[in-house]
Protein backbone atom coordinates (compact mmCIF):
# COMPACT_ATOMS: atom_id res chain seq x y z
CA UNK A 1 0.00 0.00 0.00
CA UNK A 2 1.29 3.50 -0.80
CA UNK A 3 2.02 5.99 2.00
CA UNK A 4 -0.96 8.32 1.29
CA UNK A 5 -3.23 5.28 1.03
CA UNK A 6 -2.04 4.03 4.40
CA UNK A 7 -2.52 7.35 6.23
CA UNK A 8 -6.01 7.61 4.73
CA UNK A 9 -6.86 4.13 6.09
CA UNK A 10 -5.60 5.15 9.50
CA UNK A 11 -7.79 8.29 9.44
CA UNK A 12 -10.87 6.31 8.45
CA UNK A 13 -10.19 3.73 11.19
CA UNK A 14 -9.70 6.52 13.74
CA UNK A 15 -12.89 8.37 12.76
CA UNK A 16 -15.07 5.24 12.83
CA UNK A 17 -13.61 4.23 16.21
CA UNK A 18 -14.38 7.66 17.69
CA UNK A 19 -17.93 7.62 16.34
CA UNK A 20 -18.47 4.14 17.73
CA UNK A 21 -17.07 5.09 21.16
CA UNK A 22 -19.21 8.24 21.39
CA UNK A 23 -22.38 6.35 20.47
CA UNK A 24 -21.63 3.62 23.03
CA UNK A 25 -20.86 6.21 25.70
CA UNK A 26 -24.07 8.14 25.04
CA UNK A 27 -26.12 4.94 25.15
CA UNK A 28 -24.75 4.07 28.58
CA UNK A 29 -24.83 7.55 30.14
CA UNK A 30 -28.40 8.20 28.94
CA UNK A 31 -29.70 4.98 30.47
CA UNK A 32 -32.30 5.63 33.19
CA UNK A 33 -30.22 3.98 35.94
CA UNK A 34 -26.89 5.60 34.98
CA UNK A 35 -26.63 8.12 37.87
CA UNK A 36 -27.07 5.31 40.37
CA UNK A 37 -24.58 3.03 38.56
CA UNK A 38 -22.10 5.88 38.28
CA UNK A 39 -22.24 6.47 42.03
CA UNK A 40 -21.77 2.82 43.02
CA UNK A 41 -19.25 1.68 40.35
CA UNK A 42 -17.33 4.79 39.35
CA UNK A 43 -16.77 6.76 42.54
CA UNK A 44 -13.61 8.86 42.22
CA UNK A 45 -12.70 8.90 45.89
CA UNK A 46 -13.18 5.18 46.35
CA UNK A 47 -11.27 4.64 43.13
CA UNK A 48 -8.12 6.38 44.32
CA UNK A 49 -8.46 4.81 47.75
CA UNK A 50 -8.67 1.33 46.18
CA UNK A 51 -5.63 2.03 44.07
CA UNK A 52 -3.58 2.35 47.24
CA UNK A 53 -4.36 -1.17 48.49
CA UNK A 54 -5.48 -3.45 45.63
CA UNK A 55 -2.29 -3.34 43.51
CA UNK A 56 -0.33 -4.53 46.52
CA UNK A 57 -2.71 -7.44 46.97
CA UNK A 58 -2.42 -8.10 43.24
CA UNK A 59 1.26 -8.93 43.76
CA UNK A 60 0.02 -12.17 45.33
CA UNK A 61 -1.83 -12.99 42.10
CA UNK A 62 1.36 -12.34 40.17
CA UNK A 63 3.34 -14.63 42.45
CA UNK A 64 0.69 -17.34 42.16
CA UNK A 65 0.63 -17.38 38.38
CA UNK A 66 4.37 -17.04 37.90
CA UNK A 67 4.99 -20.08 40.11
CA UNK A 68 2.07 -22.00 38.61
CA UNK A 69 3.08 -21.27 35.00
CA UNK A 70 6.64 -22.45 35.55
CA UNK A 71 5.49 -25.72 37.11
CA UNK A 72 2.69 -26.23 34.55
CA UNK A 73 5.12 -25.97 31.62
CA UNK A 74 7.11 -28.89 33.02
CA UNK A 75 4.25 -31.08 34.31
CA UNK A 76 2.18 -30.67 31.14
CA UNK A 77 5.15 -31.56 28.95
CA UNK A 78 5.67 -34.70 31.02
CA UNK A 79 2.01 -35.65 30.60
CA UNK A 80 2.13 -35.05 26.84
CA UNK A 81 5.25 -37.22 26.53
CA UNK A 82 3.64 -39.98 28.61
CA UNK A 83 0.67 -39.92 26.29
CA UNK A 84 2.84 -40.23 23.18
CA UNK A 85 4.77 -43.28 24.42
CA UNK A 86 4.44 -46.11 21.89
CA UNK A 87 3.84 -49.80 22.33
CA UNK A 88 1.70 -52.02 24.58
CA UNK A 89 4.18 -51.89 27.49
CA UNK A 90 3.40 -48.25 28.15
CA UNK A 91 -0.36 -48.66 28.01
CA UNK A 92 -0.85 -48.02 31.76
CA UNK A 93 1.11 -44.76 31.55
CA UNK A 94 -0.78 -43.62 28.46
CA UNK A 95 -4.07 -44.52 30.13
CA UNK A 96 -3.03 -42.62 33.24
CA UNK A 97 -2.33 -39.49 31.20
CA UNK A 98 -5.70 -39.78 29.45
CA UNK A 99 -7.58 -40.26 32.73
CA UNK A 100 -5.74 -37.31 34.22
CA UNK A 101 -6.63 -34.98 31.34
CA UNK A 102 -10.27 -36.12 31.35
CA UNK A 103 -10.56 -35.73 35.11
CA UNK A 104 -9.05 -32.29 35.54
CA UNK A 105 -10.61 -30.79 32.45
CA UNK A 106 -13.98 -32.20 33.47
CA UNK A 107 -14.19 -31.00 37.08
CA UNK A 108 -14.86 -27.26 37.50
CA UNK A 109 -11.72 -25.45 38.65
CA UNK A 110 -13.56 -23.97 41.59
CA UNK A 111 -14.39 -27.47 42.89
CA UNK A 112 -10.80 -28.66 42.57
CA UNK A 113 -9.71 -25.63 44.57
CA UNK A 114 -12.28 -26.31 47.30
CA UNK A 115 -11.55 -30.02 47.48
CA UNK A 116 -7.80 -29.60 47.71
CA UNK A 117 -7.74 -26.37 49.70
CA UNK A 118 -10.09 -27.55 52.44
CA UNK A 119 -9.79 -31.31 52.06
CA UNK A 120 -6.08 -31.96 52.21
CA UNK A 121 -5.25 -29.72 55.21
CA UNK A 122 -8.17 -31.35 57.05
CA UNK A 123 -6.44 -34.72 56.76
CA UNK A 124 -3.80 -33.36 59.17
CA UNK A 125 -1.03 -35.52 57.77
CA UNK A 126 2.25 -34.51 59.35
CA UNK A 127 4.76 -33.07 56.90
CA UNK A 128 2.07 -32.09 54.40
CA UNK A 129 1.62 -28.31 54.17
CA UNK A 130 -1.71 -27.14 55.53
CA UNK A 131 -1.57 -23.66 54.04
CA UNK A 132 -4.69 -23.20 51.86
CA UNK A 133 -2.71 -20.89 49.54
CA UNK A 134 -0.30 -23.75 48.81
CA UNK A 135 -3.15 -26.09 47.90
CA UNK A 136 -4.88 -23.40 45.88
CA UNK A 137 -1.78 -23.08 43.73
CA UNK A 138 -1.51 -26.87 43.46
CA UNK A 139 -5.14 -27.01 42.28
CA UNK A 140 -4.46 -24.43 39.55
CA UNK A 141 -1.38 -26.38 38.49
CA UNK A 142 -3.33 -29.65 38.30
CA UNK A 143 -6.19 -28.15 36.29
CA UNK A 144 -4.12 -26.11 33.86
CA UNK A 145 -1.55 -28.87 33.33
CA UNK A 146 -4.40 -30.96 31.91
CA UNK A 147 -5.22 -28.22 29.38
CA UNK A 148 -1.64 -27.38 28.52
CA UNK A 149 -0.70 -31.06 28.07
CA UNK A 150 -3.38 -31.26 25.36
CA UNK A 151 -1.84 -28.21 23.70
CA UNK A 152 1.60 -29.82 23.78
CA UNK A 153 0.15 -33.06 22.43
CA UNK A 154 -1.47 -31.27 19.52
CA UNK A 155 1.93 -29.75 18.77
CA UNK A 156 3.71 -33.11 18.93
CA UNK A 157 1.08 -34.67 16.67
CA UNK A 158 1.46 -31.83 14.18
CA UNK A 159 5.11 -32.67 13.50
CA UNK A 160 5.10 -35.01 10.50
CA UNK A 161 6.09 -38.61 11.35
CA UNK A 162 8.77 -38.43 8.64
CA UNK A 163 10.71 -36.10 10.94
CA UNK A 164 10.92 -38.71 13.65
CA UNK A 165 11.66 -41.38 11.04
CA UNK A 166 14.55 -39.29 9.73
CA UNK A 167 15.93 -38.80 13.23
CA UNK A 168 15.57 -42.47 14.18
CA UNK A 169 17.06 -43.59 10.85
CA UNK A 170 20.25 -41.74 11.81
CA UNK A 171 20.50 -43.90 14.91
CA UNK A 172 19.18 -41.37 17.42
CA UNK A 173 17.30 -42.91 20.34
CA UNK A 174 13.60 -42.18 20.68
CA UNK A 175 14.28 -39.83 23.57
CA UNK A 176 16.88 -37.90 21.57
CA UNK A 177 14.64 -37.75 18.49
CA UNK A 178 11.90 -36.32 20.68
CA UNK A 179 14.20 -33.87 22.43
CA UNK A 180 16.13 -32.50 19.46
CA UNK A 181 13.81 -32.95 16.50
CA UNK A 182 10.15 -33.29 17.46
CA UNK A 183 9.74 -31.12 20.57
CA UNK A 184 11.53 -28.00 19.30
CA UNK A 185 9.23 -27.93 16.28
CA UNK A 186 6.15 -28.83 18.32
CA UNK A 187 6.68 -26.18 21.01
CA UNK A 188 7.26 -23.44 18.45
CA UNK A 189 3.92 -24.22 16.84
CA UNK A 190 1.90 -24.20 20.08
CA UNK A 191 3.22 -21.01 21.69
CA UNK A 192 0.06 -19.01 20.80
CA UNK A 193 -2.46 -21.49 22.28
CA UNK A 194 -0.09 -21.97 25.22
CA UNK A 195 -0.12 -18.26 26.02
CA UNK A 196 -3.87 -18.30 25.57
CA UNK A 197 -4.18 -20.86 28.37
CA UNK A 198 -1.91 -18.73 30.53
CA UNK A 199 -4.23 -15.74 30.08
CA UNK A 200 -6.98 -17.97 31.46
CA UNK A 201 -4.77 -18.99 34.34
CA UNK A 202 -3.96 -15.38 35.24
CA UNK A 203 -7.65 -14.64 35.67
CA UNK A 204 -8.29 -17.83 37.61
CA UNK A 205 -5.74 -16.88 40.27
CA UNK A 206 -8.67 -14.88 41.70
CA UNK A 207 -10.37 -18.20 42.55
CA UNK A 208 -7.69 -18.91 45.17
CA UNK A 209 -9.35 -16.12 47.18
CA UNK A 210 -12.11 -18.62 48.00
CA UNK A 211 -9.67 -20.36 50.36
CA UNK A 212 -8.94 -17.16 52.25
CA UNK A 213 -5.67 -15.66 50.99
CA UNK A 214 -5.99 -11.93 50.41
CA UNK A 215 -5.22 -11.42 46.75
CA UNK A 216 -6.61 -8.65 44.54
CA UNK A 217 -10.17 -9.94 44.31
CA UNK A 218 -10.37 -10.69 48.04
CA UNK A 219 -8.95 -7.27 48.83
CA UNK A 220 -11.53 -5.61 46.60
CA UNK A 221 -14.31 -7.53 48.41
CA UNK A 222 -12.97 -6.16 51.67
CA UNK A 223 -12.95 -2.65 50.24
CA UNK A 224 -16.48 -3.04 48.92
CA UNK A 225 -17.69 -4.23 52.31
CA UNK A 226 -16.18 -1.23 54.09
CA UNK A 227 -17.33 1.45 51.61
CA UNK A 228 -20.66 0.03 50.42
CA UNK A 229 -19.45 0.90 46.93
CA UNK A 230 -18.55 -1.39 44.01
CA UNK A 231 -15.77 0.76 42.55
CA UNK A 232 -13.00 -1.54 43.97
CA UNK A 233 -14.28 -4.32 41.67
CA UNK A 234 -13.81 -2.03 38.68
CA UNK A 235 -10.28 -1.25 39.85
CA UNK A 236 -9.49 -4.95 40.14
CA UNK A 237 -10.92 -5.62 36.69
CA UNK A 238 -8.75 -2.87 35.22
CA UNK A 239 -5.63 -4.28 36.89
CA UNK A 240 -6.30 -7.76 35.49
CA UNK A 241 -6.90 -6.33 32.02
CA UNK A 242 -3.70 -4.29 32.15
CA UNK A 243 -1.79 -7.49 32.81
CA UNK A 244 -3.59 -9.56 30.21
CA UNK A 245 -3.34 -7.13 27.30
CA UNK A 246 0.45 -7.30 26.91
CA UNK A 247 0.31 -11.11 26.90
CA UNK A 248 -2.53 -11.12 24.36
CA UNK A 249 -0.66 -8.70 22.08
CA UNK A 250 2.51 -10.78 22.44
CA UNK A 251 0.51 -13.83 21.34
CA UNK A 252 -0.86 -11.97 18.31
CA UNK A 253 2.61 -10.76 17.41
CA UNK A 254 4.05 -14.28 17.62
CA UNK A 255 1.28 -15.64 15.40
CA UNK A 256 1.83 -12.87 12.86
CA UNK A 257 5.58 -13.46 12.89
CA UNK A 258 5.14 -17.18 12.25
CA UNK A 259 2.80 -16.40 9.35
CA UNK A 260 5.34 -14.03 7.86
CA UNK A 261 8.09 -16.62 8.16
CA UNK A 262 5.92 -19.26 6.53
CA UNK A 263 5.16 -16.94 3.63
CA UNK A 264 8.80 -15.97 3.30
CA UNK A 265 9.72 -19.64 3.18
CA UNK A 266 7.63 -20.14 0.08
CA UNK A 267 4.06 -20.49 1.23
CA UNK A 268 1.86 -22.87 3.05
CA UNK A 269 2.72 -26.38 3.94
Amino acid at each position, binding site marked *: MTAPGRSRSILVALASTIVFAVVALLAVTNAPGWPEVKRSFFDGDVFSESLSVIPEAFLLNVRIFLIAEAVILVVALGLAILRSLPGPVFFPLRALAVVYADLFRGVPTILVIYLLGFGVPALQISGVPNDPLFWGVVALILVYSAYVSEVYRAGIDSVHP*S*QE*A*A*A*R*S*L*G*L*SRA*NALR*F*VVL*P*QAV*RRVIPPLLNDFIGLQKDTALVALLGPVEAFRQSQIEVASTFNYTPYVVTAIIFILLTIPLARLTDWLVARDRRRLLA*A*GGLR
Partner: protein
Amino acid sequence: MSASASALVLEDVHKSFGRNEVLRGIDLTLAPHEVVCLIGASGSGKSTLLRCVNLLEPVDAGRIVVAGAEITSPGTDVNAVRRGIGIVFQAFNLFPHMSVLRNVTLAPTRALGLSRADAEGQALELLERFGLADKRDEYPDRLSGGQQQRVAIVRALAMRPELMLLDEVTSALDPELVAEVLNVIRELAEGGMTMLIATHEMGFARDIADRVCFLDAGLILEEGDPEAIFTAPQEPRTQQFLQRIIDAGRL
Protein backbone atom coordinates in the same frame (compact mmCIF):
# COMPACT_ATOMS: atom_id res chain seq x y z
CA MET B 1 29.20 -66.63 -1.19
CA SER B 2 28.73 -67.10 2.56
CA ALA B 3 26.38 -64.82 4.46
CA SER B 4 29.14 -63.31 6.56
CA ALA B 5 30.98 -62.02 3.51
CA SER B 6 27.87 -60.25 2.24
CA ALA B 7 27.06 -56.65 3.05
CA LEU B 8 23.35 -57.36 3.14
CA VAL B 9 21.26 -60.51 2.94
CA LEU B 10 17.47 -60.67 2.81
CA GLU B 11 15.89 -64.10 3.19
CA ASP B 12 12.22 -64.61 2.42
CA VAL B 13 11.20 -61.22 3.84
CA HIS B 14 7.46 -60.68 4.22
CA LYS B 15 5.65 -57.49 5.19
CA SER B 16 1.96 -56.63 5.26
CA PHE B 17 0.06 -53.49 6.14
CA GLY B 18 -3.28 -54.80 7.34
CA ARG B 19 -4.50 -57.08 4.58
CA ASN B 20 -2.24 -55.51 2.02
CA GLU B 21 0.74 -57.82 1.48
CA VAL B 22 3.47 -55.45 0.32
CA LEU B 23 6.47 -57.81 0.41
CA ARG B 24 5.77 -61.45 -0.39
CA GLY B 25 9.07 -63.21 0.13
CA ILE B 26 12.06 -61.12 -0.90
CA ASP B 27 15.45 -62.82 -1.31
CA LEU B 28 18.32 -60.51 -2.07
CA THR B 29 22.07 -60.46 -1.39
CA LEU B 30 24.45 -57.53 -1.77
CA ALA B 31 28.21 -58.07 -1.84
CA PRO B 32 30.40 -55.37 -0.29
CA HIS B 33 30.79 -52.37 -2.62
CA GLU B 34 27.95 -53.59 -4.79
CA VAL B 35 25.35 -51.15 -6.14
CA VAL B 36 21.91 -52.66 -6.67
CA CYS B 37 19.01 -50.74 -8.17
CA LEU B 38 15.40 -51.64 -7.44
CA ILE B 39 13.03 -50.75 -10.24
CA GLY B 40 9.31 -51.31 -10.53
CA ALA B 41 5.98 -49.53 -10.55
CA SER B 42 4.78 -47.40 -7.63
CA GLY B 43 3.39 -49.70 -4.95
CA SER B 44 5.57 -52.63 -5.95
CA GLY B 45 7.25 -52.57 -2.53
CA LYS B 46 10.53 -50.75 -3.21
CA SER B 47 10.20 -48.18 -0.42
CA THR B 48 8.87 -50.72 2.07
CA LEU B 49 11.83 -52.97 1.33
CA LEU B 50 14.27 -50.16 2.13
CA ARG B 51 12.38 -49.15 5.25
CA CYS B 52 12.48 -52.76 6.47
CA VAL B 53 16.26 -52.93 6.03
CA ASN B 54 16.55 -49.81 8.20
CA LEU B 55 14.08 -51.29 10.72
CA LEU B 56 11.76 -48.33 10.27
CA GLU B 57 9.21 -51.07 9.53
CA PRO B 58 9.36 -54.38 11.42
CA VAL B 59 9.26 -57.40 9.09
CA ASP B 60 6.50 -59.98 9.54
CA ALA B 61 8.63 -62.97 8.54
CA GLY B 62 12.05 -63.70 7.13
CA ARG B 63 15.57 -62.62 8.05
CA ILE B 64 17.71 -59.61 7.31
CA VAL B 65 21.46 -59.88 7.90
CA VAL B 66 23.72 -56.84 7.72
CA ALA B 67 27.49 -57.42 7.64
CA GLY B 68 27.06 -60.88 9.13
CA ALA B 69 24.74 -59.87 11.99
CA GLU B 70 21.06 -60.67 11.92
CA ILE B 71 19.12 -57.49 12.60
CA THR B 72 15.63 -59.00 12.58
CA SER B 73 16.15 -61.13 15.70
CA PRO B 74 14.44 -59.97 18.88
CA GLY B 75 16.67 -57.95 21.19
CA THR B 76 18.54 -56.28 18.36
CA ASP B 77 19.77 -52.79 19.26
CA VAL B 78 17.92 -50.90 16.53
CA ASN B 79 19.82 -47.69 17.15
CA ALA B 80 23.15 -49.45 16.64
CA VAL B 81 21.88 -51.05 13.43
CA ARG B 82 20.67 -47.72 12.08
CA ARG B 83 23.95 -45.99 12.91
CA GLY B 84 25.62 -48.27 10.38
CA ILE B 85 23.01 -47.83 7.65
CA GLY B 86 22.35 -44.51 5.95
CA ILE B 87 18.96 -43.86 4.41
CA VAL B 88 17.93 -40.94 2.20
CA PHE B 89 14.27 -40.23 1.59
CA GLN B 90 12.32 -38.97 -1.39
CA ALA B 91 11.09 -35.93 0.58
CA PHE B 92 14.57 -35.09 2.05
CA ASN B 93 13.17 -34.92 5.61
CA LEU B 94 15.77 -32.40 6.75
CA PHE B 95 15.16 -30.86 10.17
CA PRO B 96 13.65 -27.46 9.31
CA HIS B 97 14.52 -25.81 12.63
CA MET B 98 18.25 -26.47 12.31
CA SER B 99 20.95 -25.02 10.10
CA VAL B 100 22.59 -27.26 7.51
CA LEU B 101 25.58 -27.75 9.78
CA ARG B 102 23.40 -28.74 12.75
CA ASN B 103 21.41 -31.12 10.55
CA VAL B 104 24.66 -32.89 9.70
CA THR B 105 26.25 -32.86 13.18
CA LEU B 106 23.20 -33.79 15.29
CA ALA B 107 23.44 -37.56 14.94
CA PRO B 108 27.27 -37.81 15.11
CA THR B 109 27.28 -35.85 18.38
CA ARG B 110 24.19 -37.46 19.94
CA ALA B 111 24.36 -41.02 18.61
CA LEU B 112 28.09 -41.56 18.03
CA GLY B 113 29.29 -39.40 20.91
CA LEU B 114 31.63 -37.30 18.77
CA SER B 115 32.72 -33.98 20.24
CA ARG B 116 31.12 -30.95 18.67
CA ALA B 117 34.42 -29.85 17.17
CA ASP B 118 35.11 -33.27 15.63
CA ALA B 119 31.59 -33.54 14.27
CA GLU B 120 31.75 -30.07 12.75
CA GLY B 121 35.16 -30.69 11.23
CA GLN B 122 33.93 -33.87 9.60
CA ALA B 123 30.67 -32.23 8.50
CA LEU B 124 32.47 -29.31 6.88
CA GLU B 125 34.75 -31.73 5.06
CA LEU B 126 31.73 -33.56 3.64
CA LEU B 127 29.86 -30.34 2.79
CA GLU B 128 32.99 -29.09 1.03
CA ARG B 129 33.28 -32.32 -0.94
CA PHE B 130 29.72 -32.01 -2.23
CA GLY B 131 29.86 -28.28 -2.95
CA LEU B 132 27.75 -27.18 0.00
CA ALA B 133 30.32 -25.50 2.23
CA ASP B 134 28.83 -22.02 1.66
CA LYS B 135 25.41 -23.28 2.80
CA ARG B 136 26.53 -24.40 6.25
CA ASP B 137 24.57 -21.74 8.12
CA GLU B 138 21.49 -21.73 5.89
CA TYR B 139 18.19 -23.27 6.96
CA PRO B 140 16.72 -26.01 4.74
CA ASP B 141 13.83 -23.75 3.61
CA ARG B 142 16.33 -21.48 1.91
CA LEU B 143 17.86 -24.22 -0.25
CA SER B 144 16.78 -25.63 -3.60
CA GLY B 145 15.45 -29.18 -3.68
CA GLY B 146 18.69 -30.45 -5.15
CA GLN B 147 20.73 -28.76 -2.43
CA GLN B 148 18.39 -30.10 0.26
CA GLN B 149 18.74 -33.62 -1.05
CA ARG B 150 22.53 -33.31 -1.19
CA VAL B 151 22.49 -32.12 2.43
CA ALA B 152 20.35 -35.15 3.30
CA ILE B 153 22.94 -37.41 1.69
CA VAL B 154 25.74 -35.66 3.58
CA ARG B 155 23.74 -36.02 6.81
CA ALA B 156 23.54 -39.77 6.24
CA LEU B 157 27.22 -40.00 5.27
CA ALA B 158 28.29 -38.18 8.44
CA MET B 159 27.45 -41.37 10.34
CA ARG B 160 30.07 -43.20 8.26
CA PRO B 161 27.62 -45.92 7.20
CA GLU B 162 28.70 -49.20 5.63
CA LEU B 163 25.53 -49.33 3.58
CA MET B 164 23.39 -46.62 1.99
CA LEU B 165 19.71 -46.97 1.15
CA LEU B 166 18.34 -44.43 -1.32
CA ASP B 167 14.57 -44.19 -1.64
CA GLU B 168 13.68 -42.46 -4.93
CA VAL B 169 15.88 -39.56 -3.96
CA THR B 170 15.29 -37.63 -7.19
CA SER B 171 11.53 -38.15 -7.52
CA ALA B 172 10.60 -34.93 -5.72
CA LEU B 173 13.07 -32.79 -7.68
CA ASP B 174 12.60 -30.46 -10.62
CA PRO B 175 14.13 -32.09 -13.71
CA GLU B 176 17.02 -29.63 -13.90
CA LEU B 177 18.06 -30.47 -10.32
CA VAL B 178 18.18 -34.23 -10.78
CA ALA B 179 21.68 -34.35 -12.28
CA GLU B 180 23.44 -32.72 -9.31
CA VAL B 181 22.02 -35.36 -6.98
CA LEU B 182 22.75 -38.26 -9.32
CA ASN B 183 26.34 -37.04 -9.62
CA VAL B 184 26.72 -37.25 -5.87
CA ILE B 185 25.44 -40.84 -5.89
CA ARG B 186 27.75 -41.69 -8.77
CA GLU B 187 30.66 -40.36 -6.76
CA LEU B 188 29.65 -42.53 -3.81
CA ALA B 189 29.48 -45.60 -6.06
CA GLU B 190 32.94 -44.85 -7.41
CA GLY B 191 34.17 -44.54 -3.83
CA GLY B 192 33.03 -48.11 -3.19
CA MET B 193 29.90 -47.46 -1.12
CA THR B 194 27.51 -50.41 -0.92
CA MET B 195 24.15 -49.10 -2.02
CA LEU B 196 20.60 -50.31 -2.44
CA ILE B 197 18.77 -47.76 -4.60
CA ALA B 198 15.06 -47.57 -5.38
CA THR B 199 14.73 -45.40 -8.46
CA HIS B 200 12.62 -44.37 -11.41
CA GLU B 201 15.67 -43.03 -13.25
CA MET B 202 16.21 -45.94 -15.61
CA GLY B 203 19.08 -44.37 -17.50
CA PHE B 204 20.85 -43.78 -14.21
CA ALA B 205 20.15 -47.32 -13.01
CA ARG B 206 21.54 -48.75 -16.20
CA ASP B 207 24.59 -46.58 -15.84
CA ILE B 208 25.48 -47.06 -12.19
CA ALA B 209 24.08 -50.42 -11.06
CA ASP B 210 26.07 -53.63 -10.81
CA ARG B 211 22.74 -55.39 -10.73
CA VAL B 212 19.12 -54.40 -11.34
CA CYS B 213 16.13 -56.01 -9.61
CA PHE B 214 12.64 -55.66 -11.00
CA LEU B 215 10.04 -55.67 -8.21
CA ASP B 216 6.48 -56.58 -9.02
CA ALA B 217 3.70 -57.00 -6.47
CA GLY B 218 6.08 -57.64 -3.58
CA LEU B 219 8.39 -60.09 -5.33
CA ILE B 220 11.69 -59.76 -7.15
CA LEU B 221 10.44 -61.01 -10.48
CA GLU B 222 13.65 -60.63 -12.41
CA GLU B 223 17.21 -59.61 -11.66
CA GLY B 224 20.42 -59.43 -13.57
CA ASP B 225 23.05 -57.09 -14.86
CA PRO B 226 21.62 -53.83 -16.20
CA GLU B 227 22.34 -54.53 -19.85
CA ALA B 228 20.45 -57.82 -19.72
CA ILE B 229 17.45 -56.35 -17.87
CA PHE B 230 17.12 -53.25 -19.99
CA THR B 231 17.86 -54.77 -23.41
CA ALA B 232 16.57 -58.33 -23.09
CA PRO B 233 14.11 -58.70 -20.20
CA GLN B 234 12.79 -62.25 -19.90
CA GLU B 235 9.59 -61.82 -17.91
CA PRO B 236 6.48 -60.43 -19.66
CA ARG B 237 5.79 -58.12 -16.67
CA THR B 238 9.29 -56.67 -16.91
CA GLN B 239 8.87 -56.18 -20.64
CA GLN B 240 5.54 -54.39 -20.08
CA PHE B 241 6.99 -52.15 -17.40
CA LEU B 242 10.01 -51.17 -19.49
CA GLN B 243 7.86 -50.63 -22.57
CA ARG B 244 5.74 -48.15 -20.61
CA ILE B 245 8.91 -46.37 -19.48
CA ILE B 246 10.15 -46.21 -23.07
CA ASP B 247 6.75 -44.95 -24.26
CA ALA B 248 6.93 -42.21 -21.65
CA GLY B 249 10.32 -41.23 -23.04
CA ARG B 250 12.13 -41.98 -19.80
CA LEU B 251 14.74 -44.42 -21.13
